Structures are given as C-alpha cells and as structure tokens.
C-alpha cells in the first residue's frame, strides 16, 4: 500500500483516466466490494421511485422478564444472542437465506459500511457486547439483536412500498414470536426500552428526494408543516444527521394509541402530498425555465465526471441536480439505480472499504471523485 505522499504524487503526474485504468488487482477487489455494498433497496424500482428512494419498517420487540440491552449484564445479553441463534436454527429462517453476524468480530470499517447501507444503526455498530445482525440474503429483511431492544426487525424496500414492507416485517415478527415470549402488555402494547417506541414498536419511514421544493424555497415551510402532524423529518442518515442532497427521511413519531394501519396511512397520506407538491414544483420550474434546469443538471454532471476532489456535501448536491435532470428527461443515460448506489458508495465507510485502508478527509475527497468517475456512465 502506498503512503499518502506517494498517492498524491502519482495523482499529480497521471491523468485521472490513467489512474482509473491503473492497478487491475485493486480494481477487481473493488468490483467485488462494490457489489457487496450495492443493496436491493437501491434498485430505483417500485412505485414513485423517482421521488421516493426507499420505504422502511422497523419493529421493536423484547423478551419478557429479561432486562433490556442497555441495562442487561453481559451474561444476559449473551443469553439473548444465544436465543436469537436458536431461533435461526429452529425456525426456517436459515433455509430461507438468513445468516447471522456477530458485530464484535466485524472490523470498524465494515460496521460503518453496514450503517451506511442502512442495515444497522450507529448504536449497534458501536456495540461490542453480544450484539448481532441477522440478515436475509437479499438484505431486504434485517434483524438487529441487542440493539436498544432485544430484537429490531427491519424491512427495507425500494420506492413507496410501506404496506408491503409492513406485511413482510410483520411476517418475520410472527416467526420470531412463535419461538419467543414477547414482552407485551394489554394496555401499553409491545414494551420497549424507550418510551417513544412503546405500543406498536413500529417506526415507518420513507426517504424522499425533494429538489424542486428546495429550489423554489418551499421546503422549510412544508417540512415544518409535516413535523406538526406528528411526523419527524431527518436527513439521510437519521437522527441528528444533516439534510444534504435534498434528501429527507419522514417517519412517524407516535407509536401508542394508533394501529399499525393508521400509522402507515398517515405517513402514506403525507408522503403522497409531498410527492404531489414536488411534482407541481417541478412542473413550475420546467415552465419557468427548462433551459436553466437542463444547464444545472449538465453542469453538475460535468463536475461529477471531471472533478479530482469532491466533498461529501457537494457530491450529494450535484447528484441531486443530476437526478432531477434525469427525472425530467433533460439528461439521458444515467440510471436511477446508479444514482442511488452512489449515495451510499461515497460515504466515508464505503470509500475506505473499497480502498481497503483508512483514509483521512483529504484522501476521501480524492477517492470519492474517483468512485463517482468510475460509476457514473
């Protein structure tokens, strides 16, 4: 492996094209790793795929009379993990393509990759004490063991498919339940470590790309209205992350006193409204100045294709501009799938995994530009 100075030096002497062609061995490894990073939810398929990148359902479940993971002893956590492994064996989960990974044996970079793929939470990635990820091969269903709750079942689908995601997650909930004694109370529903999840234990969310609402400066007004109807708005990577690339995650906050169907309908209703508003804002922009939009997309594409260094923030913004151009037919030949994949591939964890070494911010900006070059058609 080259040290920093050498890497920068070689970059300054060769054209970017040559750098890309160089090092076939690394390219092969990177190809394999890129296909590891790519996940089903990035496909760019499903209803409203242009605006809705993905739909997610998460169910929080716990076992009766066992301390919740944050307060559990190592022994108790180990018991929960063992229970999870037993369920995997005794149910048909293993046959249906499930595997289990102990978090403690994974490298920090690979854990980060799993977070960036939305398969585990940042909390689980930091957990070394008997935590695990049960993952179906297609990565649509993942079950976190010993996160904040004993089990967190997740279903992640491309496009707007909340109902289907709920049905899938609920199916696996039933399978787990047939082997486990859930902590459940008639009055308070599924009992969870955090009172914000009690009741249904359901967190439903959609990831939306709303560039036209941002360009027309309506986004803040609209998002604050969304937050007033009991829904939370966050950035691409959930709680506390900044909102970049005009991507917004909308999710329910209320879990008690509403049925799963009501929660989904509420989120679906608001999402549909946001989609309509975004569409009419796009219409408006097209009427106002089609050329301006085309220019914006073309310039963004040009920078992505030629830049030597890209920060995460600007890459996200340019990808958003390109995406809008593609959606409106102003820019051709860039599949949604690639744009979705790039949202993840350019994250720090993925870049370091692809490069198989730790990268500082400077090197990441270089590598980010290279990966975008390679992937963007």
């Amino acid at each position, binding site marked *: 492996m080259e040290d920093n100075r050498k890497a920068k030096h070689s970059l300054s002497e060769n054209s970017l094209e040559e750098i890309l062609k160089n090092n076939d061995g690394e390219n092969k490894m990177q190809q394999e790793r890129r296909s590891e990073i790519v996940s089903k939810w990035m496909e760019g398929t499903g209803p409203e795929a242009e605006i809705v990148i993905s739909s997610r359902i998460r169910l929080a479940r716990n076992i009766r009379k066992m301390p*919740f993971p944050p307060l559990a002893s190592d022994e108790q956590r180990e018991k929960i993990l063992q229970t999870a492994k037993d369920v995997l064996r005794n149910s048909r989960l293993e046959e249906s393509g499930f595997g289990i990974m102990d978090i403690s044996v994974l490298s920090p970079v690979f854990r980060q990759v799993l977070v960036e793929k939305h398969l585990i939470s940042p909390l689980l990635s930091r957990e070394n004490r008997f935590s695990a990820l049960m993952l179906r091969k297609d990565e649509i269903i993942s079950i976190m063991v010993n996160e904040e709750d004993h089990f967190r079942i997740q279903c992640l689908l491309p496009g707007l498919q909340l109902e289907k995601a709920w049905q899938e997650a609920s199916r696996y909930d039933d399978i787990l339940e*047939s082997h486990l004694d859930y902590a459940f109370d008639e009055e*308070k529903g599924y009992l969870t470590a955090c009172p914000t999840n009690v*009741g249904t234990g359901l967190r439903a969310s959609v990831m939306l790309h709303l560039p036209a609402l941002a360009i027309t400066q309506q986004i803040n007004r609209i998002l604050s209205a969304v937050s007033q109807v009991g829904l939370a708005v966050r950035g691409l990577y959930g709680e*506390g992350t900044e909102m970049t690339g005009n991507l917004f995650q909308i999710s329910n906050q209320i879990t008690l006193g509403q049925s799963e169907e009501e929660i989904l309908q509420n989120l679906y209703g608001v999402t549909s409204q946001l989609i309509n508003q975004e569409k009419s804002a796009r219409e408006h922009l097209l009427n106002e100045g089609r050329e301006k939009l085309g220019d914006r997309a073309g310039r963004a594409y040009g920078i992505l294709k030629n830049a030597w260094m890209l920060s995460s923030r600007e890459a996200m913004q340019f990808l958003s501009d390109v995406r809008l151009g593609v959606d409106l037919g102003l820019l051709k030949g860039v599949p949604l799938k690639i744009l979705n994949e790039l949202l993840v591939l350019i994250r720090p964890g993925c870049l370091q995994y692809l490069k198989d070494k730790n990268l500082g911010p400077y090197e990441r900006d270089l590598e980010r530009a290279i990966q975008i070059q390679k992937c963007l058609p």
Partner: protein
Amino acid sequence: MLCEKCGKNIASVHVTKIINGKKTELYLCENCAGEKGELGFSFEGKFPLHQFFSNLMSFPGSGSGKVASTSYSGLQCPGCGLTYAQFGQIGRFGCDRCYDSFGENLLPLLRRLHGNQKHIGKIPARVGSHVRLKKDIERLREELQKKVAEEAFEEAAVLRDKIRKLENKISSGGENHGG
C-alpha cells in the same frame, strides 16, 4: 429558572453557542427555543434524549400535578433495580416490568409523547389467547356473582372450578395456547 427571553415560562432548554471562539449561553423555555430556531429538525442531535424526558417528566401543568415529585422519585423496579429518578436521567426503561413498577406515573409522559396511553395495534398470537382467557374469566366471575346472589351454590361451585382451571392456564404461561 425562568426563560431568559420571555421571562414567563420555566427554562427547560440550555443553549450553548460557540462562534469564533466566543461562547454564549442561553436558558430558554421550549416556546422561545423553537422561535429562535434553536430547535431545528435535528432536535435529537442537539439535545440529549434523557434531558428531553426529564423535562417532560417534571413539566408542570402536564396533568402530573397530583403526583408530588418526592413521592415517585423513590420508586424502584423490582425487576431490574432501576429507580424512577434514574429512568428520568437515562430516558430508558431497564426491563418490561418497569412499566408496571412506575405505573400511573408514566401516563402523563406517554400522553405527552403519543397523545394516547392505550395500545390498539397488533397483538401477539400467544398473548391473544391469553387476553381471551382473561376475558373469559371476567365473564365467568360475573356469572358466579349472580349465582351466589341467587344462592345457586351448586352452579356457583361449577363456575368457580372453571375459573380456577382458566387461572391455572394463565399462570402456567399459556404456552399450550399459542396459535
């Protein structure tokens, strides 16, 4: 302490800003913090959840007035040993029994978080049969009362045995009734 902006409400939000090395501190109420834009969408990121909960739990006029703070801070869950005061600090329960242990004290918090306090969603199949058993027992008990009032003791004895059987099923965990 009162809000430094409006001077009316209790300050529940502590804002520290460091701009170009210059530190400014503000104690605001929830309303003013919202207006000042200090509580953006990344609320969770800026303010620790536990602080949020302790604010909710001690918030005056939230309907929890009848419970004096001294009476419940000493509560402790026999399941995991977590005290109510600790729960307020960490914002997490220790185990499923905490919900029972802290009982009614939780209702104002749940109402503030969810606007509701009763679950109406999915019920686990296994618990579903448990719930049905409980409802059966309730019904039989009512009948039993009637029979006793009517002095129909033989029939009452039959009902009593039925109730006992059902209660045994429940206390044995109802494992035989999953479905």
